C-alpha cells in the first residue's frame, strides 16, 4: 500500500483529476439536495408554457414539451442517473470482489464455476444482454440498476481474483495463515486491502459506463419509464425538438457528458495516483 498522503498529493497535483472529483462532488450534492434546490415541481405540467425559452416566465433553463421546468427536471433526473451509476458500481464491486476473492482464494471447483460464468457473461455484448433482460423485467430505476449492475461485476471479479492469486503465496499472508487466521479473516484483512486500489479505479469507471448505458437503453426504448426523469430519457425524448427547442436536448446531453467526463478524469487520476511504479 502506498502512503495515503502521497496518493493525495499526486491526485491533487493532477489538475484534470481534481477538477473531475470536484465536479462529481458538486453533482452528487446537487442531486441529493434536489428537492430543496429545484425551483419547481419537476413533474408539474403547465401546458400554457410548452417550450418556454430559457429565462421566460421564470423557467431558468426553459420548459419542455409539457411545460415542465427543465432545471428542476435536470436536478431530479440527476438523482436517478447518479443513483443508477453509483449503485451499479457498488453492486459491481461487492459481487465482483466476493466472487473474485472466493475464486482466487479457494481455487478448484469454485474457481472453475465462477470463472465459467464470467466467461459466459463476457462472451455476450453488454447491450444485447441488457436488452434481452429488460424485455421481460419492468423497466424501473431499480431493475435497470440491477440489470446493469449484474452485468458489470465481471472485470472486478477477474481483477480481484488475480490480486488474490498473486498475493496468497506471499510471506505476510503465509505468516498470517501460520498464525491461525481463518479464511474470511485472511481475505478481509490481508488480501482485500491490497486489491482496493484497482477496484476503486474500476468502480469509478463503472459509474461512467452505467450512466451511458442507461441513456442508450432509453434510446432503444427499454429505459426508465416516464414520468420518472433520468438524463438518458430526457435526452432521448428531446431528440425530435433539437432544432426548435434546443434547450430541451442540450442540457441533459451536457449533464451526461459532464458527469461521465468527471468520473473518467477522476478515475484516471486515481489510477495514476495509486500506481506504485510512478514516482512521487
Amino acid at each position, binding site marked *: 500500500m502506498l502512503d495515503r498522503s502521497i496518493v493525495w498529493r499526486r491526485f491533487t497535483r493532477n489538475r484534470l483529476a481534481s477538477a473531475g472529483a470536484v465536479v462529481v462532488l458538486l453533482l452528487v450534492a446537487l442531486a441529493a439536495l434536489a428537492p430543496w434546490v429545484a425551483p419547481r415541481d419537476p413533474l408539474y*405540467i403547465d401546458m400554457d408554457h*410548452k417550450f418556454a425559452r430559457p429565462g421566460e416566465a421564470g423557467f431558468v433553463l426553459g420548459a419542455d414539451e*409539457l411545460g415542465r421546468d427543465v432545471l428542476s427536471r435536470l436536478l431530479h433526473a440527476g438523482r436517478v442517473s447518479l443513483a443508477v451509476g453509483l449503485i451499479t458500481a457498488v453492486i459491481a464491486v461487492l459481487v465482483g470482489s466476493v466472487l473474485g476473492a472466493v475464486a482466487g482464494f479457494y481455487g478448484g471447483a469454485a474457481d472453475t464455476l465462477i470463472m465459467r460464468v464470467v466467461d459466459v457473461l463476457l462472451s455476450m455484448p453488454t447491450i444485447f444482454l441488457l436488452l434481452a433482460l429488460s424485455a*421481460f423485467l419492468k423497466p424501473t430505476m431499480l431493475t435497470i440498476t440491477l440489470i446493469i449492475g449484474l452485468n458489470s461485476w465481471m472485470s472486478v471479479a477477474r481483477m480481484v481474483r488475480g490480486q488474490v492469486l498473486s498475493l496468497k503465496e506471499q510471506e505476510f499472508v503465509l505468516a498470517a495463515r501460520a498464525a491461525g487466521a481463518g479464511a474470511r479473516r485472511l481475505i478481509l484483512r490481508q488480501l482485500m486491502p491490497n486489491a482496493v486500489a484497482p477496484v476503486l479505479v474500476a468502480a469509478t469507471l463503472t459509474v461512467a459506463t452505467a450512466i451511458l448505458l442507461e441513456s442508450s437503453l432509453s434510446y432503444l*426504448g427499454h429505459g426508465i419509464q*416516464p414520468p420518472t426523469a433520468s438524463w438518458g430519457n430526457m435526452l432521448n425524448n428531446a431528440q425530435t*425538438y433539437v*432544432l426548435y427547442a434546443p434547450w430541451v436536448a442540450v442540457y441533459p446531453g451536457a449533464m451526461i457528458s459532464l458527469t461521465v467526463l468527471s468520473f473518467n478524469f477522476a478515475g484516471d487520476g486515481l489510477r495514476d495516483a495509486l500506481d506504485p511504479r510512478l514516482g512521487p
Partner: protein
Amino acid sequence: MRRHDLSRRHFLTGAATLGATLGAVGVRGAGAQAPGAPQKGGQVIVGLSQEPQNFNPVMPTIEAQRGVHMAIYDDLWRIDPKGAFVPNLAAAIPTQANGGVSKDGTSFTVKLRPGVQWHDGQPFTARDVVFTWKTIMNPKVTAFSTVGFDQIADMWTGDDATLKFKLKQPYAPILDILADMFVVPEHVLARSADINKDEFNTRRPVGTGPFKFVEWVSGDHVTLEAHRAYHGPGPYLDRLIFKYVPDLTVLFTQLKTGEVDATGIQGIPVDLYPEARTLSTINLYVDPSTSYETIAPNHLLPMFKDRRMRQALYLGLDKKPIVEKIYLGLAPEAESYVPPQSWAYNPKIKGHHRYDPERAKRLLDEIGWKVGPDGIRVKDGARLSFENACTAGNKQREQIQQLLQQQWRQIGVEMKINNKPAAVLFGDFYRMSKFETIVIGMGMGSDPEHSFRLHSKYIPAKGGLGRNSIAYENPEVDRLLDAGVRDLDREKRKTAYFRLQEVLADEVPYLPIYHFVNIRGTRKGLEGFRPNSNMQEYPWNTNEWWIRKA
C-alpha cells in the same frame, strides 16, 4: 392500430351512396398545381419506420407491410377516399340492382375483369380467388385473420371469369372483408409443401398488382418494378422502393434531404409538424382517420364496475390541452367511437362530456370515496389508485398519460404509469384483460358496427373469441349491436346506433379522447398521391403515382 376495425358498409344499395367522405385535406401545396397528364418514368422511395418482411398477404401482417402488399397484389375491389367501392379484379361491384347479389342477400356472383395477368405471365382466373379463400380458411395455414371469411359457406367458380359464393347468413360487412383479401396465385402456391414457410412469402412473391417484386434486402429496403401488363391505369413509375428507417427523426431528415420521397405509416410525428410546415420542398397532408384514442378501464375490476366511477374519471379529464397543445389543434376531440363525419354519428351526444372536476369530486364523494390524508381518495381501506399502460416509447401517448396523471390527481385519483413493449402489452396482458387501465387506439372504420370491441360474447377472458378485452358487459348494448348488424336498412340501423351512442355516453365503458389524424409528407413533384383513410395503408393507389419532371 390505425387499421380499421371491421369497417362494414351498407352494400345492397350500391356503391355510390356509401359512407361519409373523409377526403384528404391538403394543408399547403397539395393540389395547388393542376396535375395534368401523368408522365412516365422515375422511381419513388417510401420511408417506413417498420420493416416489411412477409410479402404473402395471407400471413400475419403489420401495417407497413400492407402497403407493400397493395402494390404487389390486387383485391376484388378497393375503397376510395370518398368511401366508394372501386372494382379492381372484379369487373363490377355486385349489387342487388345489377343481379350480383340475391334477394336474401346471401348469394353472390362476381364477374371478373378479363385479361388480367400474373407477374409471371400466367392468366388470372376465378380459381385463384377460390384458392386464396380456401388458403385463408385452411386450419394448417397461419393465416392472419379468418374474421368475416368464415361467414362464407362456400366459394366456387362459374367459369374462369365468374366467381360465386354463398354466405351462411346475411352479413353486412362482407364487401369490406373482401376489399382486404389480396389474391394469391394458385398455380404457384398449390404446389407448396408448407405454405407457412414457402420462399414465395419472402423471396419470390407473385401478384397481379401494378408492381412486381424485385428484391428484399433484409433490414434495408424492398424494390418493386413496374408490371407493364397491369390491368388498370398506370403504373407510371419505373420503380417503387420501400425503405426501412427505424428512427422517426432520421426518417423526417431523409424526407427533408430527398432521400425518401414519401413518409410511410407513422408519417411525420406531430412534434415535427411545425417544422414540416416551413419546408418548401414537400407537400403536407393532414388526413383524418376513423380511429380514435381512448382510455380503457378493465371492467373485470370491481372499482370500474361502478358506472359513476367511470363517469367521474371522464368528468375529471380535460381534453383541451391534449388536443390543442399536444396535437396542435389538428386532431378533433372524440365523444364517441363514431366520428362526427359518419352517417351514424348522433349529434345529440356532442357536448355530453364536459370537463367538470367539481362534479367529478362530488360524484366520487357520493359513492363513498373520501379524500384521504395524502390527498388520494380512500374507501374501505383501499386507495383510489390504479396503473395505466401503453406501448412503451409512444411519445404522444406518454405525454397524454402524464397529463392525465396530473388531472386525475386533482380529483383525488392516483394513476401510476407502467408501460410495456408492444410484444408484451398485446400479449395476455391486454388480450386476456390483465391490465388495470390502458391508453389505446381503436378503429371503427366507416361502418358503426363495433361488436368485436363491445359485445359481451367477445370477451377473451371469459372464453369469447373477439377483442372485447376491456371485458365490458351490458345487455342493452349487446341488443343494440345485434340489431345494428342484422338490419340491412340504413334508417333502421341508424336508430340502433343513435341509441347505442346515447347509452355509451351515459355508461362510459371507455373514455374517448380524440380522433386520430395522419400527418404525411411527400416530395413536391410526386403526383397522384391520395391519402385514403378507408384503406389501412396509404400507398393504396401507387399505380396512379407519377413524377412531374422539372
